[in-house]
């Protein structure tokens, strides 16, 4: 920031006041944080089950398009039927995209990092085509769908996006599943040691399918909430980077489902306030990525975590390719 001749304190002040200071700014932050939290959660489920799900971006975007389509194309339904249907569309297509990568891993043994990267590119191209052709808003030159009908729009509670509270609830539910249930324990065991899990009679294939499918479903829900609650229509350019921020958030939370909540709020706030930061303090919005990298670095660098006594030093969060 010094490089741009701006006052760093002005910039941080602007970041804070716009992200968390006013009720509207706070609402905006929570709205930004919702899909981020869900994509972080999807990555977290993968990490805990020994999978590195880079495909969250594709899963999220397909969910966003599916929900957006259901939001304008299905007509004449009351909100308590239409909204759940639109959300289910998002969940289903997100899960489908995740499941394909899981099935390729489980049945053909192709590494999930390869398939999710390739599927991301395929889905992004497909979605771009569909939003620009079959599902395009009539009379529109941009690639975007028609606006979502009021009967499929997620209502706000006191001006705050209600999807956010749902996402927090879901994060807690995922934590509960991993902590307290057998199915969660199975996934965790597969993530910790695949061979031991197999020896103990846990189906590794099934775990891979479940982890990728459920992760995809959650990412798809994230896309659906973004479309139905925040943006109001599907536009391919609006969702870029959400899935990759999800990886950062999951790593910030050290693969703990509850850890994604503060991470998502923080990153959502920074992302949401970046444009006003530019306005108030003249700092280019690109600085946000630098700040994010520094945060991730500071949280994970051992000398700092030793100092903060927060978590075990050198604890293993990810499992590399070796599974």
């Amino acid at each position: 920031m010094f490089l741009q001749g701006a006052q760093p304190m002005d910039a941080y002040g602007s970041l804070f006041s716009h992200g968390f200071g006013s009720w509207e700014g706070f609402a905006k932050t929570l709205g930004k944080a919702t899909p981020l939290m869900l994509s972080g959660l999807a990555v977290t489920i993968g990490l805990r089950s020994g999978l590195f799900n880079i495909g969250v971006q594709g899963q999220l975007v397909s969910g966003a398009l599916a929900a957006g389509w259901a939001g304008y194309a299905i007509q004449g339904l009351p909100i308590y039927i239409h909204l759940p249907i639109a959300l289910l569309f998002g969940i289903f297509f997100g899960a489908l995209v995740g499941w394909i990568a899981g099935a390729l891993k489980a049945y053909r043994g192709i590494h999930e990092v390869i398939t999710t990267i390739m599927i991301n590119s395929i889905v992004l191209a497909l979605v771009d085509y569909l939003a620009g052709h079959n599902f395009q808003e009539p009379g529109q030159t941009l690639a975007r769908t028609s606006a979502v009908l009021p009967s499929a729009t997620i209502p706000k509670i006191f001006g705050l996006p209600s999807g956010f509270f749902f996402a927090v609830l879901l994060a807690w539910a995922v934590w509960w599943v991993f902590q307290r249930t057998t199915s969660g324990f199975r996934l965790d065991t597969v993530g910790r040691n695949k061979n031991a899990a197999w020896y103990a009679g846990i189906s590794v294939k099934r775990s891979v399918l479940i982890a990728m499918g459920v992760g995809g479903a959650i990412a798809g829900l994230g896309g659906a909430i973004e479309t139905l609650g925040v943006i109001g229509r599907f536009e391919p350019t609006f969702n870029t980077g959400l899935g990759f921020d999800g990886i950062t958030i999951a790593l910030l939370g050290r693969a703990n489902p509850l850890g994604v909540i503060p991470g998502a709020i923080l990153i959502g706030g920074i992302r949401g306030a970046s444009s006003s930061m530019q306005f108030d303090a003249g700092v280019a919005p690109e600085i946000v990525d630098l700040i994010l990298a520094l945060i991730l670095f500071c949280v994970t660098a051992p000398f700092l975590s030793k100092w903060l006594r927060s978590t075990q030093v050198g604890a293993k969060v990810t499992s590399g390719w070796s599974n």
Partner: protein
Amino acid sequence: MTRFLSFKWILTFILIAITGYLYSKDGVITTSVVATAVIFGLPLALAAMVGIMCERTGIVNIGIEGTLLFSSFIGFFVASSTNNGVFGIISAITAGVVTGLFLAFMSISWKMDQIIAGTIINILATGLTSFLYTQGRMAPTTFPIDIPFFSSIPFFGQVLFMHGPLVYFGLVVIFSLYVALYHTSWGLRSRAVGEHPGSADTAGVSVFRLRYLNVALAGAVGGLAGAYLSLELVGSWDRGFTAGKGFTALALMIFGRWNPMGALAAAMFFGLTQAVTNQLMFSDVAHIPEQFVNMLPYVLTIVVLAISAGKVRPPAAEGLQYEKEKA
């Protein structure tokens, strides 16, 4: 293994047969498509080498994308400031080494989670380059050099011997890496460190030093790939310029089974599908929407993998920290 081998050879044979047939139909276009495949495939192959060099010594490098982005930016920036392409290439390689050393520092000395370390490099490179980027810069680019005699061979001349200097340099790097990895003591030691660092240490190999060296060298190769992208292939630089090539390279590395020749073949196959789709788009044979054309390389990679499938086996000690035993 034998199943994969036979599939690999069948695929190669089919590709050669199709190329030969097309060459007999239209020599000019076929030759230029295959030559374009080399041009598109090379940066991916070099980027995959970065992954191989790191992972063979047991360091997961997910920051290849960041290395490419950062070094291509620095290379372009220096070349445009000094108006000298050679300075640009040298500084791109230096920038690559810097990212490599940073990764080594985080993952070897600080024993951070290696995937997090790579992610930090990716985000940092994205932020730093788009922050420093200014529009409208121009930089000198390299020019193709025809290698005398060889370039006059029909087909192979244009495919292999009529490129810019960095293509030749890159190919030399890839082949020497293959030889070095399997036929020198450095290669044997590197592989030993990646499979079983404890034994390598017992045999007198300094695990830390070798890992540092290899990750830094890999950074240099990544810098070369970055320089190739911004100073030879494209001739400009833009935000998010590498467009996921570093991640595709990771996939190609796994596809090529952590073997330089395998990864080179995979990258060239990928480059070929891109060149063919480009040609389809350009010649407007059929009205295929651009998005579907762009999808083809990815779809084909998945299909080829699904047919040839089989479990891959990464280096055993990859991603693990090494703690020297205290006497």
